[in-house]
């Protein structure tokens, strides 16, 4: 039975799971959740995901939520543990990178994206650039530390690609998006941080990520037609 991911190809946390699945070569089936109709807050849905969020996984009856936990599970249960280092020190540096993404990247990137992208797209708001540039400044300060780490290692968690790198892709990519030409956006390939630029260029070029973005475009086009 196919592994089902309940969510949306356009949603960042669902994309975090999808890019991992594709990189691991694990086939998954996306089951759409009707966000507009608040399906994720229905009594039925809350039985599976008590926080009323997307995505969640249903693997032959085994239910799991939280995108980063789902990604780890896909690796362990279906991906031979790939993208998660095994040696004690290597695993520690990987876990350090996982925590860095969660604490130093995600909070700032997600607020930045909410202001500049999701607000305009989904709520018709105008970005408050005071808020957005504040978040960008905070994020850029963190990226100075990334620059140091990526001067030592090829990837954030060591010299091999790991889940920690992939986890940055959804919000990172949205943070670099410009809804209109010339709109302010984060530049993750800024030459003043050459190591970050090198790392970002590499992970954002992964075929698995390109595929996720292509599927997002298909989903977006379908909505525009409807």
């Amino acid at each position: 039975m196919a592994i089902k991911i309940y969510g949306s190809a356009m949603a960042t946390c669902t994309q975090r799971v999808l890019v991992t699945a594709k990189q691991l070569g694990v086939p998954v089936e996306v089951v759409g959740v009707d966000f507009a109709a608040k399906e994720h807050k229905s009594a039925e849905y809350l039985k599976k995901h008590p926080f009323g969020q997307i995505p969640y996984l249903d693997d032959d009856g085994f239910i799991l939520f939280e995108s980063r936990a789902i990604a780890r599970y896909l690796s362990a249960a279906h991906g031979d543990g790939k993208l998660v280092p095994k040696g004690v020190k290597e695993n520690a540096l990987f876990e350090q990178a996982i925590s860095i993404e969660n604490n130093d990247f995600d909070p700032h990137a997600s607020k930045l994206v909410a202001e500049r992208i999701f607000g305009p797209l989904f709520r018709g708001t105008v970005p408050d650039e005071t808020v957005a540039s504040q978040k960008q400044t905070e994020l850029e300060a963190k990226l100075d530390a990334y620059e140091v780490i990526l001067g030592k290692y090829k990837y954030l968690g060591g010299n091999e690609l790991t889940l920690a790198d992939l986890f940055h892709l959804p919000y990172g990519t949205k943070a670099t998006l410009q809804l209109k030409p010339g709109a302010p956006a984060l530049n993750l390939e800024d030459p003043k941080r050459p190591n970050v630029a090198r790392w970002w260029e590499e992970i954002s070029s992964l075929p698995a990520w390109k595929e996720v973005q292509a599927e997002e475009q298909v989903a977006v086009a379908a909505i525009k037609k409807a």
Partner: protein
Amino acid sequence: MVMKLYGTILATCFQRVLVVAKYLDLEVEVVVVDYENGEHKSPEHLKKQPFGQVPYLEDDGFVLFESRAIARYLSAKYAGGKLIPKGVRENAIFEQAACIEQADFDPYVSVLAHERVYGPLMYSSVPDEKLASAQQAKLEAKLDAYETILAKYRYLGGDDLTLADLFHLPYGAVAASPYQPGSPFMNLEDPKRPNVARWWKDITSLPAWKAVRSEFEGVVSTFKKS
């Protein structure tokens, strides 16, 4: 050579490592970092922790930061993986709980802790109760979901105690205690959520936690006197 943990007992992230070390019966030497005088932003500190934060661990030359990564390392390297389930599904439920702590608990309790306790304690600020109550309302909604999970399992990550439970203790305990008698606080033993109350009583009664908490309270009382 004894492991060195750089930081201060006042810091919740430092306490997160310490409670795990004590629970696992591991000896660590505390090296105090002079937070008040900005030592954590010094060039020496930044060489070890490029984000300028505490804590970091030094284990015979191996440097690691991010409290949750350090905790995982201590378990893997010195305690045979205790507090981290090994079975694939059990491990997935644990990782789900670890994510829940970071996404659904930490962002809210940290604001409560800083606004109502650390602010007054360290900066003589007056709590913004409008902000704090808004965060508390959000946290309470999350705790309704915790209530569901903790009805199914004894702990957040399954029927055994895991790191995910311990990770809640530092900020949770600060947010759950009134700064002064009569001050507003988040009641994690609220009888309207009996499963959360049961769980919180259980984990705050752990000897390892009591030891960390009493050390913290000792230092806090010297702050309050001065």
